[in-house]
């Protein structure tokens, strides 16, 4: 069981990297979703008038 630290570090890097990337994608996704919904609503309202 020697060198367990190395295995741990490598896993940390991989999972940390992928999860961080997914997290940033989700964050951007949410922000854009909000913007998109907002503007779609505005367009709909204006065209309804």
């Amino acid at each position, binding site marked *: 069981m020697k060198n367990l630290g*190395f295995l741990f570090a490598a896993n940390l890097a991989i999972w940390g990297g992928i999860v961080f990337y997914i997290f940033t*994608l989700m964050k951007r996704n949410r922000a854009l979703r909000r913007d998109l919904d907002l503007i779609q609503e505005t367009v709909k309202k204006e*065209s309804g008038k």
Partner: protein
Amino acid sequence: MSAEHELEEEETGTRPGEGGQVLFWLTAVGFVGALAAIFVFVPTEVTEGIVQRIMYFHVPCAWVAFFAFFIVFFCSVLFLWRREREWDIYAHASAEIGMLFCSLVLITGPIWAKPIWGVWWTWDPRLTLTLVLWLIYAAYLMLRLQTAEGSARAKYCAVVGIVGALDIPLIHFSVLWWGSQHPAPKIITSEGLGSGIDTSMGITLLVALGAFTLVYFLLMSLRVNIEKMKDEIDRLKKQRLYSN
């Protein structure tokens, strides 16, 4: 007018649809399977010990990085040929994901090498090639960041995407011939891994490769979705500007 737009939105797929759900669950299952194979199923390798398990992450990451860069090349060629925004989006998304996995390769490589080779880094051809690739696509993404959005940016990036990918075989041979002048790491070379590969190790590696490829596609769909939403927002904003 508005019905037509809703139809368009369905087509561009800015909302996660059925396919996205299937891909997500498939990836999740693949990942659980890969983790089980890596940490439970496969026996610990005799000479390298527990560190060898890093390889089941390292090799798939390298595969995904190379695959992603190939997709960049493919989409760049298609973009210059067809001039469709779609291909630019794919090239961008793939380059970003390729960079992520290339970075992971460069991080996990030294972590594996330190206990096995005794050094963090050697100028082994594969290591050098990966490092140079990382630099090429870092420049590619910087070019994207620093150029204003539009068709000019897409064209420049496509040219760099093509030029960069065509350089890969040349770099490969040059670092191979260059590296052969240096002594190869003595303890265990990475070739030793392939030759003495055990059936259970082979299966585990294949499962991991499959799982990481699914992750690539999942990330691609997320990333492409973001670009498409941006386009949609731009389009609506412009439309609103002109209609008022």
